[in-house]
């Protein structure tokens, strides 16, 4: 590894606020999608509530709320972390956990177990 990369490696144990917000927003959006997918399977009331469009069904509400969660989290985290450098590891761990839960919640074998 070159000197430049070595010094970079030493400096990049922290992450810019907006980049951290982007990672956490992706995790939040995925998590909300997974949560709503599982809840809609478990409860017809939730599925009915999420049916914003009759032709699309509950998927319409799930995707609208997931997109709102993504862009909303991006905005909130950006406002909160603006101009700050955050420790990388906690941001990564939180984003990875949220994303993993989102992927789990959108996997049919998992969410159909709640039907």
């Amino acid at each position, binding site marked *: 590894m070159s000197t430049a990369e070595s*010094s*970079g*490696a030493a*400096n*990049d144990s922290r992450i*810019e606020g907006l980049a951290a917000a*982007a990672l956490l927003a*992706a995790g939040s959006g995925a998590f909300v999608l997974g949560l709503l997918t599982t809840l809609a399977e478990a409860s017809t009331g939730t599925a009915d509530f999420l049916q914003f469009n009759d032709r699309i069904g509950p998927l319409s509400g799930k995707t609208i709320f997931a997109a709102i969660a993504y862009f909303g989290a991006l905005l909130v985290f950006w406002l909160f972390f603006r101009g700050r450098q955050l420790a990388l590891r906690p941001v990564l761990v939180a984003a990875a956990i949220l994303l993993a839960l989102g*992927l789990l919640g959108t996997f049919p074998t998992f969410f*159909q177990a709640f039907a």
Partner: protein
Amino acid sequence: MELSNREVWGLVHGMVIGAFFLLAFAGGLAELYGLRTRWNTEEGIVGRVRRLTVGYWVMAVAAWATVVTGTWIVYPWYREKLAGEDLSGCAGLEIPTPDKCSPRDFLLSNVSGDTSDWHEFGMEWKEHVAWIAPMLASSAAIIVAVYGRRLADAPRIRRIAIWTFVLAFATAAVAGILGALITKVAPVK
């Protein structure tokens, strides 16, 4: 040789915008992987960062466009309930038929073999997991835009951007492959 309005939208969703995202991935990955100070001149880094920034944003927009067209335009034609509660409208058919048997009805009816899992597992996974791709692609684009040239000297942040981008591709690939396979069995006509 003609295509229906529904087939045109299916092509725009899957073969134009969606395929663009999947095909552009390799270029985006190679550009980001190669963004290292010791592998590039200063001029090379400037050009590479410019291509990365534009490319990642274009791919993020393409990913959003793919899921929006898929969910809000094509998916309603896929899931129409036309064949009745007992799916008898699909009896004797070899492919879904407009106004009689939608692709969802067709797959669930099992009139053309054991096809219900294509809907119950394949489509159920595709329609949900696809929406994670544009979020991850947008986040990768934001990281590239925030760091820009500094990514060449920040290997950990560069690796995080790469993994975010790879996961965006992986989720899009799952959705794309399942979409292609489901369309082969039960096309939207």
